[in-house]
């Protein structure tokens, strides 16, 4: 089964570099890897020093990359929603009011929903079947948004479960009334009479709820399966990223997303420490000690501060060596 890897962390700590280097590492080992950037900042192309887009681009043997077009993704998601609404309320076109429905794009939660649907689309397209990749690597947006995306299936499932219970209560009462009176329920809407469903088999709302439950259960299982999925936290050896990682790991634990490794990027390793950098090294040691104390369950991997910016395949191959411990 295709492995899924999420690289998470505070903005600017090196998530993209780590995700890219890990992908190179696995591709060199002969695994077929797809690396996907979900970060609207889009640095993946910059890191590989090549132009990327919505269609897969081959970077080297076994390695393909996609940079999700964020605007296009949100527009596509909204277009589908808006079309549905316009279909239902088609008469709004008569008054030319349909353009007001476009305000949906500003509604809260759209970014998360669109991102989750993109993850589902990618996992379904590239993580299932004969042509599936061995590993799909996601370079994610900064922590806050990523956590909301990953929590969305769990939150949706809570809502769906409640709605299913309520729906069953409604259907049970309809059935009871129908069996006492011996008559079928009917309702008149806009002059037309409709039969009202009284059992789960004929109720479209119940069916739609079950369909939604299946869809969210599927992605939730993929996101929480410790055999195939892992979230990897990326930090710099500073106190603030450590604290943010601690909170993120706790949140991910609550929604059962397995977090396995902690990458500490840009660790200063100097043979002789210049006097003016001494406080910095001391702070680094404090941050590393804090990371060990706060995140004891994660395997720590240190990537040193390199003499050159890790851009392009050659430099990434150097960083890749550090990331071998991540399966």
């Amino acid at each position, binding site marked *: 089964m295709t492995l899924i890897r999420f690289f998470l962390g505070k903005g600017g700590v090196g998530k993209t570099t780590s995700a890219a280097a890990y992908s190179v590492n696995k591709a060199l080992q002969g695994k077929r890897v797809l690396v996907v950037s979900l970060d609207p900042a889009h640095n993946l192309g910059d890191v590989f020093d090549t132009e990327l887009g919505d269609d897969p681009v081959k970077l080297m043997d076994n390695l393909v990359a996609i940079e999700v077009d964020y605007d296009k993704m949100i527009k596509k998601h909204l277009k589908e929603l808006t079309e*549905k609404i316009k279909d*239902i309320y088609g008469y709004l076109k008569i008054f030319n009011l349909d353009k007001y429905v476009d305000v949906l794009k500003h509604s809260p939660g759209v970014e998360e*929903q669109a991102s989750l649907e993109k993850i589902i689309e990618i996992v379904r397209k590239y993580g299932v079947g004969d042509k599936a990749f061995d590993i799909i690597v996601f370079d994610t947006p900064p922590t806050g948004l990523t956590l909301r995306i990953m929590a969305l299936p769990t939150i949706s499932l809570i*809502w769906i479960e409640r709605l299913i219970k*309520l729906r069953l209560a*409604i259907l049970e*009462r309809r059935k009871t009334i129908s069996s006492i009176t011996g008559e079928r329920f009917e*309702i008149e809407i806009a002059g037309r009479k409709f039969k009202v469903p009284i059992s789960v088999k004929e109720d479209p709302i119940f069916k739609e709820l079950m369909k*939604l439950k299946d869809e969210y259960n599927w992605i939730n299982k993929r996101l929480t399966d410790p055999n195939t999925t892992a979230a990897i936290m990326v930090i710099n050896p500073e106190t603030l990223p450590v604290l943010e990682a601690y909170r993120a790991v706790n949140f991910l634990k609550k929604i059962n997303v397995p977090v396995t490794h902690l990458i500490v990027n840009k660790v200063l390793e100097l043979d002789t420490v210049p006097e003016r950098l001494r406080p910095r090294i001391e702070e680094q040691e404090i941050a590393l000690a804090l990371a060990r104390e706060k995140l004891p369950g994660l395997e720590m991997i240190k990537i040193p501060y390199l003499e050159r910016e890790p851009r392009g395949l050659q430099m990434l191959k150097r960083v890749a060596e550090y990331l071998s411990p991540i399966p």
Partner: protein
Amino acid sequence: MVLKKLSDFFDAIVSIFKGRSVEYIEAELRELENVFALIVLGSFIGLPSPPSTISLRLLPYMGRELLVMSRISERLDDMLGEMAGLFDIA
């Protein structure tokens, strides 16, 4: 003749009981349908609602619930009266 009258009498009693019990269940059903509509489409009136995908996927099938919700909202100021009527409280 007497038996027929007795049978009619008991039929009438049964149908009265049936009518009353159906009335209670119908009132309960209306409220459940109203709550369902309020939960799914609560954002219309500022209530927290499920993620928009769930609401929009259910919306096309919610004709009856929407009708019930709007009828109940029309007589919200006299809900106490309706409940009193249902339980024969004068």
